[in-house]
């Protein structure tokens, strides 16, 4: 079975950009282990030469006409949900 440590949780949290406290990581580790343990039963299924299912509709390359569709959303409306804006732009904190 796959063992999941607190450190693994913190690392996964970082990959998913979710800040996780030591304490919460301690609770999550055995839970994730339980989930992975449960899904491990798939390993017993023979999938030799079986194609993967990515989607079930069978649709391929759905095209539309290359036409401009006017948007009826105002810039102000779209920006209203952003926590910080400046001059009509979304403001972010320093990157580096």
């Amino acid at each position, binding site marked *: 079975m796959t063992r999941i440590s607190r450190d693994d949780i913190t690392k996964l949290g970082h990959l*998913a*950009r979710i*800040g996780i406290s030591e304490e919460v990581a301690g609770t999550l580790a055995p839970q994730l282990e339980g989930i992975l343990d449960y899904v491990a039963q798939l390993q017993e299924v023979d999938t030799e030469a079986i194609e993967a299912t990515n989607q079930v509709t069978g*649709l391929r390359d759905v095209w539309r006409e290359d036409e401009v569709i006017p948007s009826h959303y105002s810039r102000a409306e779209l920006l209203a949900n952003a926590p910080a804006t400046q001059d009509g732009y979304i403001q*972010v904190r320093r990157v580096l």
Partner: protein
Amino acid sequence: MSAIPRTRPSRQGQQQQWPKLAELAGQIKNGERSAVEVVEACIERAEAAEDYHGILKLEITAARERAEQIDQLVADGETEGVLLGVPFLAKDNFLTNGQAETTAASHMLETFTAPYQATAIEKLEAAGAIMLGKTNLDEFAHGSSTENSAFGSTKNPYDPQRVPGGSSGGSAAAVALNIVPFALGTDTGGSIRLPASFCGTVGYKPTYGLVSRFGVIAMASSTDVIGPLTRSSHDAGFVLDVLAGRDGRDSTTIAREETYHIGEPAELSGLRVGVIKEHMGEHVGRGMRSATWEKIKALERAGARVEEVELPHDSVALAIYYIIAPAEISSNLARYDGIKYGYYTSSADSLEETYLQSRGEGFGDEPIRRMLTGTFVLSSGYQEAYYKKAQKVRTLLRGDYETVFGTYDVLAGPMSPTTAFKLGEKGDPVAMYQSDDLAISANLAGIPSISLPAGEIDGLPFGLQLQAPAGRDKRLLDIAAAVEGVI
């Protein structure tokens, strides 16, 4: 037929069921009832049933205004719209641009005001229906009991000590309590049908792609579908007829059938019914199995040819789902970054800290568990063994269905292993996941499935599940209407 909830708020009129949707719209059109009167009745019922916490927010002002407009239209002789004046509630993962926020029952979106509406809402409104408000759900639709809502659990109308099922628990409870004649839900891994079965309503999951998901908060995109919770299969077909069809804003939508209105119910005599063997095993409660067999016997008495069928990979369906769904969830929920919209932490002093803190604080336990699981199964070194493997077994499961649908018109079985469980009963995540054990195959295969109220076991409702081949929604609804008449 559906039973009336045993535990009811005392206010008079609460028990009264709404007429069928077509009839209700007809009454409004011919002036027998006014839209205002209907909306007021819904609001009154909603207020009387507040303790069940099925509704997160009512749009009272907008709904009243719309009802007044409709009554004026009717007075002027304009009666277009198949759902004219009929109020409904939508699960709070449908974007609506009224007064109410669209929260997905998460602190992450507690203050989010949607700038546009879901296609499903637009279509219903265009058909004359009145959006009355938003219902409770498990946070981001992650759950089977509605206990994962950041704003408190919904209670089961039959027993307030029990869960309504999830994740569309608020919509199911609202329909069971007769607050509204119908409600919208989403079903990624049973989230319409499980609560329908726990609350004694009809829950319909259409063929994948039949209803546009534009403006609905994405969970697992390869299985997410939208559908109605109603009092009858007739009403389910009536709502589906409004919702179904291609949408230029959702490129995964497929062509619709001509109509989904149930005219004559299907002929049960000679109908080939397969009882899914894997859904009648030891993992399903003894009471549930015997109650389901009784209903299947009723189909046999009505002339159906019933046989047990095997879906060999159904037994691992839940395992497939709990790899694929978290993988897609971890990707879909990456958009909540504390920058464009949603919860953010003002104390963060760098971009990365903004992400880490906003997401760590904004999301509840279950979305975090799923995003971490998804990140794990997609991470290098594990992707082949988990994610790719699950996608391949999914192909095998689809093949199982293809085989049995070569011989059978419809598959039948119980909707869930047990009736509604107690609030707080399932602390272990895997135990909670297993509530959806019998629902999930239909999602993975993309086929339509309906839960029909089939009576009660020890005072709690249970559902009979029917499944049909992809694209055969009309046929499934016709069969459901016939089955409804004999169970």
